[in-house]
């Protein structure tokens, strides 16, 4: 009955929301795979926070909210975060997670302060920074050929993340071999003459771009969930990079669908529900794997036990049956 109501209301807006969410989830899942493999989950976390500062600054400087400006601002700040954390780690002799923590909290704090200072001028508020508002995505549409008599092309956020999704996809397809070597054998990559530093910052660029394009839809912090969680689920199951990418994307799409229906039932934030479903899928995977592991570890000892006490067990049976 509930599902009936769900599909009865299903309109164009829901399709746009789902399409946007699924592109966000797919792009973040693919990037997340590399972050998990390269053990850089925390730098992904850091960048997704500090991107806020990039967006706000880009907006204040250029007074425009067009996609290239936002992408530019976010990429610059994202790379700056990665570079500063690394520099602080080397020059300041701090642990690397400590230096990441110091830099991103500062950037995020600055971003929040700017948002509060210019609250009237930016249509960003603290709420939106956190959850994003994917529910409003369909109302901010772009027009081809002028606002007056152009053709409505669909939501702005959808096209933004669409472009980024394509960039991510093409980058991964083109650089697949390199990325594979760098993720699994960083030392080999160095000795093969692959420019590891370039690829590191290239990945950071992709992270920043994905984050900023997802910003409208899911907000800064939930991007982290989508970056890390589906990729971790895939990490538990996959045997190769290609498989991991596909599994991560599959997990992310499943969480979008589950999350959307949960949000519909509870009338809760769509993006938060998507992230929560991703988490629940991960925990379900872990529990299944644990049960499987337990079963496998008990199987052999059980067999040994039976073989050892065979005669005793048989005796018992004889004893019982004679009774």
């Amino acid at each position, binding site marked *: 009955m509930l599902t009936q109501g769900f599909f009865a209301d299903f309109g164009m807006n829901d399709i746009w929301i789902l399409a946007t969410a699924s592109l966000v989830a797919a792009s973040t899942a693919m990037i997340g795979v590399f972050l*998990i493999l390269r*053990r*850089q*989950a*925390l730098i*992904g*976390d850091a960048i997704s*926070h500090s991107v806020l500062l990039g967006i706000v600054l880009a907006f204040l400087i250029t007074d425009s909210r067009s996609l290239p400006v936002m992408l530019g601002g976010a990429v610059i700040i994202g790379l700056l975060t990665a570079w500063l954390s690394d520099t602080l780690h080397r*020059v*300041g002799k*701090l*642990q690397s*997670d*400590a230096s*990441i*923590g*110091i830099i991103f*909290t*500062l950037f*995020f*704090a*600055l971003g*929040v*302060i700017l948002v*509060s200072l210019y*609250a009237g001028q930016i249509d960003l508020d*603290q*709420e939106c920074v*956190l*959850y994003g508002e994917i529910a409003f995505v369909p109302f901010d549409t772009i027009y081809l050929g002028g606002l007056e008599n152009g053709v409505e092309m669909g939501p702005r956020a959808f096209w933004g993340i669409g472009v980024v999704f394509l960039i991510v996809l093409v980058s991964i397809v083109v650089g697949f071999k390199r990325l594979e070597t760098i993720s699994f054998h960083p030392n080999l990559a160095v000795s093969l003459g692959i420019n590891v530093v370039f690829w590191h910052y290239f990945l950071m660029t992709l992270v920043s771009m994905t984050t900023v394009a997802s910003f409208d839809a899911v907000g800064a*912090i*939930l991007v*982290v*969930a989508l*970056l*890390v*969680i589906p990729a*971790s689920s895939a*990490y*538990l199951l996959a045997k190769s990079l290609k498989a991991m990418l596909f599994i991560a994307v599959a997990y992310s799409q499943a969480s979008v669908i589950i999350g959307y229906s949960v*949000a519909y039932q*509870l*009338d*809760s*934030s769509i*993006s*938060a*529900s998507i*992230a*929560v479903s*991703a*988490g629940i899928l*991960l925990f379900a995977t*872990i529990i299944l*794997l*644990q049960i499987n592991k337990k079963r496998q570890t008990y199987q052999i000892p059980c067999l040994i036990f039976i073989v050892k006490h065979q005669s005793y067990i048989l005796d018992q049976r004889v004893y019982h049956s004679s009774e």
Partner: protein
Amino acid sequence: MEAFNLIQPASESAIWDNLLAFWRFEDMNVLWVLIGSILLGMSASVIGAFAFLRKRSLIGDALAHSALPGVMMAFLLFQTRDPLIMFLGAMTSSFIGFFLIDWLPKNTKIKPDAALAITLSFFFALGLMLLSYIQGLNIENKSGLDKILFGQAAAMTQDDIRLLGYVSVIILFTVGLFFQKLRLIAFNRGYAQTLGVSVKFYELLLALLIVMSVVVGLQLVGVVLMAAVLLTPIAAARFWSNELSHILILSSVLGALSAIISTQISYLAPAMPTGPWMVVSLSILFLLSLLFAPKKGLIKRYLEHKLLRQKVAEENILRTLYKLLERNQIDQKDFNQADIQSLRSVATEHLQKTLKHLCKKQLIESSARGFRMTEKGFELASLLTRRHRLWENYLNEHAELTPEQVHKQAERIEHILTESQEQQLQEELGNANFDPHGNQIPNQLKTQHRDGGKT
């Protein structure tokens, strides 16, 4: 309890009036907020220091995010904003987060950093989901619940502040009580275990304290930025000293300072969230420490490095002059730049600078014929040569290196050998007079003791 009223500052003079009002403590609440935030700043930075030393700097971040669903759950279940219930709810979910972070890497393939990020983002998403769910419900006094995301000192009630004060004092007191044990575990966990210290107990205690300080700080600093309050003060204080007790005191001072600054700003501009300002002021303090700290600051380190390089360059030239002197057994005692460069490859510009420095220190004299070592310079040069050659001998004898290999090592060590080490070498080697290349080792000069220390 009623949140205290604030006046929206209209102009600059109003800001000043408000600032004065702030410091005259006309509003008793202001005093309480100030005291509360200072206590929080101190306790969070002290407890954060131990997390930092255990190399878990970002644990505070994860725990603060994990507290969110607990707060929301507590509100949903009891439908009250009682600080104690909120506190207990937050504690519970933070603790679940803490164990999850611990459990995941131990039992699955997931790495510690990913476990942290997973826990953080999942709990946060869960918290936001519950928050948005609550906002859709028809419950009383649900407004202001979202203030714990970024923190707002102005929105705190007296009950909140009282709880904050109690918890902070408990944290500081407990750290003081178990300081020795906590320090031992922080620096050498394995050793503590062999001593029979119950490491498990103290780690649990530490976790409890971290969770407590994170949870109690949420209303002031907010979920998102609580990490910085735990982490940044200790990271800054570390540049000033190597003594843990000094570092702890300093980081609590930094924490308190940032609390004062941010509470003030929050008072002057009530729309401003407190947390971000606390983080910005902490970051500024961190940057100042990073640059200007007298022992390990960057500027100090840079200067030291530069000084050492200059000293090495000067001593190398002196040694070159000594060798030139050694080769030209005849009367020639003045050498020009070309002579020096023929023996040691050094850029002309650099050489000229170094020679100028040497002249200033009166280690060499320059004349029309070239450069000549003064008596003082000659003493230093022979001292260095002596150390160089003694070291070469030592390596030759004990490290089984070839004469070619030992030279490079000696080039480095000659600048840092001390007089007592020189004596030791001398005793170790007996009275050898020649180095492995067949050069004579200069004798110890009488005046050497005077100069030896100051090279």
